């Protein structure tokens, strides 16, 4: 069989604990985003749009949803006989049974996958960023520089810099220093977590790293410093487009809002770089006679009879008449019943917000985003305060208070 010039390894193992309730049952890359997408659609679509047709997805934490979502790769045209997308889970060999111990270890354990296609280059991607990027251009830069490793970087403000891996470069963009989350950043070029490696070098450093007992088996902390220390040719590749880490509730909300507006910060409607995703068989969305929709994204399968402002609605959301959704992200299959108000919130999928409920507070005065967990049913007239995280435990309170209410009813 033909070799592949470049194989991508997508790190999708992250538990994403800062997304709280959203990642209790699914891995972070499977979190819903932008109405009809999941986070992993972005790196996957970038691969396809850049002509990279062989992608290994490394996963071990709560992989079920992700496995099912990716399936045989058909939505991304990656259901290939040779290549395509493959889920790579940990496994038992005759003498060894290991979970992945870090990002570098995950790739190390799957070197056989890379070797099978014998590529010249390996891309290592993380599965938790929202961006559209032409990896092919980065690969060309890598080749032109004769680099051993190329790291995509983006300019950040000096204040933010300490949250990232920061690179210092010379005038040719060759990397001179790498600081992981530095207190005093020496530059404002942040690593995007997108790497191109020449395969042989990658292999060499992964094997060395595996033998190093003090290593934490992480790309940023171990592999890149080791390569720099050994004098390999590492280059930065500057990226100018939209890029957002969606690792927190706030940044996830912000990234959703970036899709809105006359000229959105991040434009999904550009036909030249379409984001591919698994599409479900939903009918067109219906907008009722009294509905008001302003500055929002609405996906197929929705029925909108109430008011939706500055919000992103996934497929199959119902907003009943009199209900108001504002500054919020509503994931698939939710129902916002009559006269309920949802403000500055993220509502996870298949949730029912009972009629008359008030979730969150107007953004201007709110102390934080309210979050409602997957599949809950808020009884009528509940009040969810701003910043609350509504899960099953929280629900018990409602039920209790509801009982009290019904007692009151009974008393009346």
């Amino acid at each position, binding site marked *: 069989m033909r070799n592949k010039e470049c194989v991508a390894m997508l790190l999708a193992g992250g538990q994403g604990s800062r997304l709280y309730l959203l990642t209790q049952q699914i891995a972070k890359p499977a979190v819903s985003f932008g109405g009809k997408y999941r986070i992993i659609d972005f790196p996957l679509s970038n691969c396809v749009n850049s002509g990279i047709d062989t992608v290994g997805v490394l996963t071990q934490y709560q992989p079920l949803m992700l496995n099912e979502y990716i399936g045989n790769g058909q939505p991304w045209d990656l259901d290939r006989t040779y290549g395509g997308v493959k889920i790579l889970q940990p496994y038992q060999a005759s003498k060894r049974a290991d979970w992945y111990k870090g990002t570098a270890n995950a790739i190390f354990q799957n070197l056989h996958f890379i070797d099978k296609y014998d590529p010249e280059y390996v891309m290592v991607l993380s599965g938790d960023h929202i961006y559209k990027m032409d990896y092919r251009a980065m690969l060309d830069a890598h080749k032109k520089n004769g680099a051993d490793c190329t790291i995509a970087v983006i300019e950040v403000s000096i204040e933010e810099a300490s949250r990232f891996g920061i690179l210092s470069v010379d005038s040719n963009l060759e990397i001179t220093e790498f600081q992981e989350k530095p207190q005093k950043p020496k530059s404002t070029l942040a690593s995007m977590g997108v790497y191109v490696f020449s395969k042989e070098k990658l292999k060499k450093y992964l094997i060395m790293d595996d033998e190093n007992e003090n290593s934490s088996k992480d790309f940023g902390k171990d592999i890149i410093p080791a390569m720099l220390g050994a004098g390999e040719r590492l280059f930065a590749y500057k990226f100018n487009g939209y890029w957002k880490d969606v690792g927190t509730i706030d940044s996830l909300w912000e990234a959703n809002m970036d899709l809105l507006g006359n000229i959105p910060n991040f434009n999904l409607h550009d036909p030249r770089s379409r984001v591919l995703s698994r599409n479900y068989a939903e009918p067109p969305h219906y907008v009722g006679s009294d509905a008001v929709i302003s500055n929002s994204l609405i*996906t197929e399968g929705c029925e909108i009879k109430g008011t939706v402002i500055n919000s992103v609605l996934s497929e199959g959301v119902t907003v009943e008449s009199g209900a108001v959704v504002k500054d919020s992200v509503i994931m698939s299959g939710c129902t916002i019943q009559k006269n309920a108000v949802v403000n500055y919130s993220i509502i996870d999928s298949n949730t029912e917000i009972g009629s008359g409920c008030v979730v969150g507070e107007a953004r201007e005065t709110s102390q934080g985003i309210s979050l409602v967990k997957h599949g809950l049913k808020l009884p009528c007239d509940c009040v969810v305060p701003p910043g609350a995280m509504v899960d099953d435990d929280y629900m018990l309170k409602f039920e209790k208070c509801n009982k009290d209410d019904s007692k009151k009813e009974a008393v009346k």
Partner: protein
Amino acid sequence: MTVAGVIFSNIHDDNIPELTKMRTMASIPFGCRYRLIDFALSNMVNSEIYNVGVITHYNYQSLMDHIGTGKDWDLARRTGGIRILPPFISAYTGEQKLYVTRLEALKGIVNYLQYLKDDYIVLCDCDIICNIDLSKIIDHHIKTKSNLTIAVKQTYVVGDMAADTQIIESDDEGRITDILSTPLYENGYKDINMNVCVFTRTYLLKILSDAVVHNYSNLTFDILKKNIHKERYHIYRYEGYFTKISSIMDYYDHNMDLLDFNIRNELFNVKNRPIYTKVRNSPPTRYVEGSSVMNSLIADGCIIEGTVENSILFRGVKVNKNAVIKNSILMQDTLCGDRVELNCVITDKNVVIRDGRVLSGHESLPFVIGKNSIV
């Protein structure tokens, strides 16, 4: 017990010449995101019929593009799956005569039908709009030991109905006693032929070989009516929403029907029976500040800056600022410029309406604008 499906893709093309100039009836866009054939195909797949032949004749490039490998209906199979059955054109016989009727179409695929191993064949027109569980018709067919079972829908029939609508009469046990054409008939509730039927395959092959020998060309008159008392033909009465498209007015009205919640519900919201279509990977529709939309159905991929009322918008439609779209059907990628006003207009794919244009048809005669036109 296995079942294969056969769909006629061109039979009714003449009914809507406005939209079939460059495509089959089967591939006419409908309901914001579908093509007509999606209903027949989804009904088959949802009834576990995974071996479907589509009889084509002309203009079927757009149908082939729509179907692709069949993946979107889970019909990309090594065995079975979906197959386009093109007309048999031989270089040597010079045989260029193409079929006009269903029976002629079936005669053209006798070899295909012989080669199948399935016990039953579901025949289906491509313009039926319904969400029907075909396995129930098949069960009924088996239970009544029928040779042929025709699905019917009880409907109030008036004199001026489309000429190709047939009325089926049956006895108390559902056995067919007569097949009639409408214009001759008085008004009232009648069972009309849905053009969905189940044949026992061996029986179908038998009548096709008869038809070849005797050079029959009309299934109803040359074969069924002649044998109606001899053979076991039954009806199956379907209760749900059903319509078909017999004219451009039908097309307009039945698109608008979808604005009714109950009809939408009966078509699209049936458990385990979704209607599939080709995936186009459109992003969600973006509404900007100042947009105003009421009583409309809108697919993914649109950008709405203006006003939309009582309309059907397909994927990728753009309605610019201060445009007002009323009572219209805008197909895929229609672009309405600033201050455009449309009323009772049907735009085909890729139509561009320039800034400020005002176009208006009437509910009884919608204004149809052809594919790729720039107005």
